[in-house]
């Protein structure tokens, strides 16, 4: 039933495609989102980027998007449809669109394709990603400074490299302040289920955590923190309105500048497939204003942010794996390939990675 539902949903999504009158001199740029743009999280942020493109490039560009497109075979149709409808550049924003984009890119060699968070490229298919882990290191440091119990609650979705990387980076940040810092990790098996996220936050607080970190998209966990007069971090969007006394900062994505530059390149005819992994220094990963913390913690966070923007990588040795075996030697920096395929914890993480 769920499958049928998803199939039907994709169809409705396809039908609801915002199609406006086509002007010959306008470049049509299109986006495919896996979630609804109203999720106030990941897809929402990508759509904010699209709106920035519209604003910055004005009448030189026309945009369209498809939301709620399920990852997997169904995605083929979404991309093909956009390509047929005259989209000149198409951004696929979710990891699961990778194979669909590779396939459709081959069929439409004149259309420019871009894929977020994947690793396959082609002559007309570029990839882009954001180094969220950089921000998570800063969150870890703040958590270690601000926590009284020395225990953070960490709500996570699925054990993919992106998420594991985030946990590791957070723990490295926290351990740099308090070597005995602990994080209790709870997997909710969903990117987006406000109710479950709230339940997970309650469970973690009940068990002694006093700061909540999330790698899920809704504001629910922060609202629980607000209610309990404890602290937490937002995710994807600035969530300060939902938790004015609880949010310390929020790890947000800012895709606008990248999208503007790529669409501009497409207009100029200078577009080439690239492979970029943007971070704090590119402005793609941003930390919302630091709030609800003393000035010295704020200063420390800002200093770390600056250090990372200056090119320092949180995954710089010496770092040991969870079982104590050596991973990075003193001064050695993890290469991007290892990070993108990360499937192990660093030392001090108190959880068994679901396989």
């Amino acid at each position, binding site marked *: *039933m*769920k499958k*049928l*539902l998803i199939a*039907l*949903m994709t169809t*409705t999504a396809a039908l*609801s495609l915002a199609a406006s009158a086509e002007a010959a001199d306008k470049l049509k740029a299109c986006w495919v989102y896996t*979630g*609804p*743009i*109203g*999720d*106030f*999280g990941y897809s*929402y942020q990508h759509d904010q980027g699209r709106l920035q493109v519209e604003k910055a490039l004005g009448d030189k560009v026309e945009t369209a998007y498809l939301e709620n497109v399920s990852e997997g075979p169904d995605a083929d149709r979404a991309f093909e449809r956009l390509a047929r409808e005259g989209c000149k550049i198409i951004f696929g924003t979710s990891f699961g669109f990778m194979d669909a984009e590779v396939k459709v890119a081959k069929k439409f060699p004149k259309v420019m394709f871009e894929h977020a968070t994947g690793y396959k490229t082609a002559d007309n298919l570029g990839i882009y990603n954001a180094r969220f882990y950089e921000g998570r290191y800063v969150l870890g440091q703040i958590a270690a400074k601000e926590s009284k119990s020395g225990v953070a*609650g960490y709500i996570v979705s699925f054990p993919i490299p992106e998420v594991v990387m985030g946990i590791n980076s957070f723990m490295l940040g926290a351990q740099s302040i308090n070597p005995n810092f602990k994080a*209790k*990790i*709870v*997997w*909710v*098996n*969903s990117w*987006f*289920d*406000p*109710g*479950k*996220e*709230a*339940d*997970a936050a*309650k*469970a*973690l607080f*009940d*068990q002694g*955590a006093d700061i909540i970190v999330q790698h899920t998209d*809704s*504001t*629910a966990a922060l*609202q629980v923190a607000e209610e309990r007069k404890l602290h937490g971090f937002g995710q994807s*969007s600035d969530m300060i*309105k*939902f938790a004015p006394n609880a949010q310390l900062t929020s790890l947000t994505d800012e895709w606008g500048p990248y999208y503007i530059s790529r669409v501009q390149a497409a207009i100029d005819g200078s577009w080439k497939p690239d492979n970029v992994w943007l971070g704090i220094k590119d402005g793609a990963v941003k930390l919302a204003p630091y709030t609800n913390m003393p000035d010295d913690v704020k200063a420390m966070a800002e200093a770390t942010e600056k250090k990372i923007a200056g090119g320092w990588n949180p995954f710089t040795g010496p770092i040991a794996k969870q079982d104590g075996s050596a991973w990075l030697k003193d001064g050695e920096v993890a290469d991007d390939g290892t990070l993108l395929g990360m499937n192990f914890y660093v030392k001090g993480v*108190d*959880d*068994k990675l*679901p396989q």
Partner: protein
Amino acid sequence: MDITVNILLTIATAATPLLIAAIGELVVERSGVLNLGVEGMMVMGAVGGFGAGYLTGSPWIGLLAAIVVGALFSLLFAVMTLSLATNQVATGLSLTLLGLGLSGMMGTGFVGQPGVRLPNLDIPGLSSIPIVGRLLFGQDPIFYISIALTAAVMWFLFKTRTGLTLRSIGDSHASAHALGIKVIRYRYLSVIFGGACAGLAGGHLSLVYTPQWVENMSAGRGWIALALVVFASWRPWRVLAGAYIFGAVWIGQLHAQAFGIPVPSQMLSSLPYLATVVVLVLISRNKRLTMMNTPASLGQPFVPDR
């Protein structure tokens, strides 16, 4: 001790929307109509409740709006399946799809806005009794409504004449019609009641559980409610038990994880559906039991001869 109370409170919050939506659907199915649109009605209730609460600043108006929106939305289903005798499964599914899409559209302006929260009950004196105080006298109002609703539906279905009539329609609409019972009218009212309950459950999500609006925020709870009705073999008190069992399993596994006990959380997430399959297998093994509990004309369209 405090942690036990907290766990129980969390379970109650998680179980309440399931219970309310399932109780509503139980009445609908007892009248012989299968409405698969619970998820859609729930999410419409959530957006309606959030919107009204946000715009007026009163969570109580939001609560009322959630009920009304759910009921109105189910009316669409009623007109289609009862007056126009469309296929109930297909119509129910489209109701869900329509609800998910429409609510997203209606809620565009509410995304990223903090809403209002329905305050917890607080009876001076009683609420501060250790342990039982918060459990019995300090929860959100919808919790009490859900319990009262279950009791009321139990009494209505099995202790009143109207309830008996409703069940007889569910078992054989042709016979009921032959006896002069207004089958369509009963079914209209049942469907609308089911819609109101689903709307209320949605309102619980956006006004109590997680006071916010985001698209698809019901996240499959409507489907679990549907499964619960079958799991409970159309008995109200079993729906209550089932909702709390599902809630307890879910919250329990979160605590187990936080405690460091490795549990396969994927498996536990699918437990409501697994449990339903097991129950279906069990009850279908015993023919008499199946006959006794399943509304015999469930899902069949009824066109009265004139």
